[in-house]
């Protein structure tokens, strides 16, 4: 009955999504005002139905109801409870249901909380949200029904991908999806505004918190995903330019650009068309990403199923939604009144440069990701890897960071180059000093890591510059947000440059009793023992790492063997210190009683994710600052209250 309840809830939600689209767009017609009031409740009930369906899916997974096909194929009774539940979205159908649940919740959130948007634009926005949901409900019901029953349930499920059996699965996909799908709100706002031709500062101020919210989650999701891949895959890398990673990076790049252009629109009423375009592009990238991953058209660790029929279905949805929005853009945007103009040397100018560079990186990543498909269409098979992405995106990213550092020091509307020069003098001096220090102390460094380190130092200084000579208690929270986020970029950049420049790797076949050196550590292989987990067996190495006279660190990397489904995974063991991480993996046994040991010393690698977290924290401060503007504006009366 649980599965059937879920299916029925899904059907009702789909019907409500249709109604929602009908009411939302219908409200735009002359005499459609009565429909305005009905749109909000429909969106809320639609979300409630979708959440019900998702809850039913969690329930059948938690109870391992093997008569449900999805459970039988992707779970097993022997799994620990955590993975029985998170396994609900560790497969194609479940993950699509989570996607659409977040879509419905986003629509409901707009219906409940959005008060600033003009009523007609809001109705069109909610209508667009319903229309998007309708397509994906159809996709779920016609080609990926998660509640399908089996006539004869098996005695045991087929098990769950061991790589996904990690607490990271509880956190990473939901966070990423909130970011990914949260961008649908910006998309629907853009469609709504194009329909009502109401694009201006008020619209931008209404849209900004939604973009910020999605962007914060996207940032967190990517950061968490990067760390998860880093420790779970056991390859010691933190970014692989895997199609799915790119699929999350592309919306992030577009959303970052959007975040900044929407600020220009909100404060200076400039960049109207550009902001609308970015709002369409950001969620389009989310949908393209969903398509790339879900169709299995590009093979990847994230592709659960290779199914061209599903691919064709999503492709048609993409053509309708993205094509429709872009066509609406082409037809309508010329009739939107032009916004304010500004000087190239100004805060707006820097933001436009930042936008163009972000878009350039987005283009580089998009072309690299689709390259295998594009060349295949022309008859050859070529794919591009990290060398392309690093070489093409790296330099643009460095220029982008430099402009990001200078931008906040420029005035709105018009500035003088001389004045800007004076303000960036200190960070520029820091860059020069850092360059000299790095060149002298670390000769032979490759060019990209070198520039990365030097720029990170300058950017860190420049990012806190807006706080210079300000009363810190009266500085608005959103200014703090910007400072913290930009500082996060500098921190993350320093981590990336340090990891790529100074990582040391050792691969040896060691006997118990051997000692291996990596970086500043001497790693002693004390023992290799068999251990048993809840649903796997493993060999576990005991490593004792010492550094100079310091206390020894004990590490236990494992090589796990799962039998349902049969697969081996390397479970890395990582020791985190202030100045870096010691990363250890134990591999296959080698004849002669030896074991493959792979050891890395990665100086300051944790800065990458610390920076990512700071960026998200900056976003959160900004969001808070915009949500509570009055509290800050009130005069501070010191000395009165005790």
């Amino acid at each position: 009955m649980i599965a059937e309840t879920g299916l029925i809830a899904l059907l009702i939600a789909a019907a409500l999504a249709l109604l929602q689209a009908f009411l939302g767009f219908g409200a735009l017609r002359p005499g459609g005002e009565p429909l305005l009031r009905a749109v909000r409740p429909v969106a809320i009930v639609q979300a409630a139905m979708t959440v019900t369906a998702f809850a039913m899916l969690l329930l059948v997974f938690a109870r391992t109801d093997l008569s449900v096909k999805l459970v039988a194929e992707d779970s097993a009774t022997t799994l620990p409870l955590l993975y029985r539940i998170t396994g609900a979205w560790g497969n194609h159908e479940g993950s699509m249901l989570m996607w659409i649940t977040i879509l419905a919740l986003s629509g409901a959130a707009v219906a409940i909380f959005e008060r600033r948007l003009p009523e007609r634009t809001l109705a069109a926005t909610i209508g667009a949200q319903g229309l998007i949901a309708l397509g994906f409900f159809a996709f779920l019901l016609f080609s990926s029904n998660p509640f399908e029953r089996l006539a004869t349930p098996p005695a045991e499920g087929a098990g769950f991908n061991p790589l996904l059996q990690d607490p990271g699965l509880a956190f990473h996909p939901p966070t990423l999806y909130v970011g990914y799908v949260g961008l649908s709100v910006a998309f629907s706002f853009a469609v709504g505004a194009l329909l009502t031709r109401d694009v201006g500062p008020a619209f931008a101020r209404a849209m900004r918190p939604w973009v910020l919210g999605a962007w914060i989650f996207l940032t967190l999701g990517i950061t968490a995903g990067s760390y998860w891949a880093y420790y779970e895959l056991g390859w010691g890398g933190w970014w692989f330019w895997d199609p799915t990673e790119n699929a999350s990076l592309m919306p992030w790049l577009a959303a970052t650009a959007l975040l900044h252009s929407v600020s220009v629109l909100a404060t200076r009423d400039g960049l109207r068309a550009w902001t609308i375009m970015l709002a369409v592009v950001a969620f389009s990238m989310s949908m393209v990403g969903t398509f790339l991953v879900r169709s299995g058209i590009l093979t990847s660790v994230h592709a659960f199923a290779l199914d061209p029929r599903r691919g064709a279905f999503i492709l048609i949805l993409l053509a309708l939604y993205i094509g429709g929005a872009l066509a609406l853009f082409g037809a309508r945007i010329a009739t939107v009144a032009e916004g304010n103009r500004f000087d190239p040397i100004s805060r707006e100018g820097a933001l436009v440069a930042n936008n163009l560079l972000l878009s350039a990186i987005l283009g580089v990543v998009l072309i690299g990701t689709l390259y295998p498909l594009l060349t295949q269409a022309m008859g050859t098979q070529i794919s591009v890897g990290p060398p392309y992405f690093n070489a093409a995106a790296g330099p643009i990213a460095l220029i982008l960071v430099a402009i990001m550092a200078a931008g906040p020091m420029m005035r709105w509307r018009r500035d003088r180059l001389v004045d800007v020069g004076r303000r960036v003098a200190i960070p520029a001096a820091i860059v020069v000093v850092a360059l000299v220090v790095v060149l002298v102390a670390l000769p032979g460094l490759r060019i990209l890591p070198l520039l990365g380190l030097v720029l990170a130092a300058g950017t860190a200084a420049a990012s806190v510059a807006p706080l210079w000579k300000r009363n810190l208690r009266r500085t608005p929270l959103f200014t703090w947000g910007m400072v913290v986020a930009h500082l996060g970029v500098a921190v993350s950049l320093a981590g990336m440059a340090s990891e790529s420049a100074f990582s040391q790797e050792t691969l040896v076949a060691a006997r118990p009793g051997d000692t291996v050196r990596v970086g500043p550590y001497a790693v002693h292989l004390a023992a290799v023992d068999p251990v048993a987990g809840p649903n796997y067996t493993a060999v576990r190495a005991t490593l004792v790492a010492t550094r100079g006279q310091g206390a020894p660190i004990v590490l236990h990397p494992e090589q796990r063997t799962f039998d349902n489904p049969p697969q081996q995974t390397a479970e890395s063991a990582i020791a985190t210190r202030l100045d870096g991480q010691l990363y250890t993996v134990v591999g296959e046994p080698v004849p002669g009683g030896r074991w493959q040991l792979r050891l890395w010393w990665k100086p300051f690698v944790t800065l990458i994710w610390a920076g990512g977290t700071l960026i998200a924290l900056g976003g959160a401060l900004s969001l808070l600052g915009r949500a509570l503007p009055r509290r800050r504006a009130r005069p501070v009366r010191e000395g009165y209250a005790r």
Partner: protein
Amino acid sequence: MTLRTIRILLWLPLIAFLLILAAVASGLIKPHSTNVPSQMIGQPLPPFDLASGRGDAIRVRAAGFADGKPHLLNFFASWCVPCVGEAPQLLAIKQAGIAIEGIAVRDRPADLAEFLTRNGDPYDRIGLDDTSGVQMALGSSGVPETFVVDGHGIIRAQHIGAIGPQDVADMLAAVRSAQ
């Protein structure tokens, strides 16, 4: 810019998107193949010079292929299970009078000797490719894989995966046409 050009520019995003869509759709319609053909077909063999896998002094050199008669160049390894299945077909091809050069990928002479004793030895020479460098240079993505090299040292054809009993006739034809 005139108003007219601006109006046309506004449709550019849609056009770009439709182009991408067309490329992606063609990727969906075409049958999905995981076999990636080498870009080296029609090119001369990249230079290499490998130590013998039999412990003797007979090296395997790229230059040695340009001796006027076609060769098969077979990538294999003692640790590769499909290579065991392929062995009888390679022996049959050798008996038909074709020279087969072997390149053992990431292998050891002791393991190789055992593999050859158990499965037969169709190879004129065997080179050791300890780093997969030669395999990469030829655009091969796995073992077993077999290339047809003509008498001028030009790569003529590639067979990805094990040569099954049904493939022997095709391989013989491919070698003969590579004279």
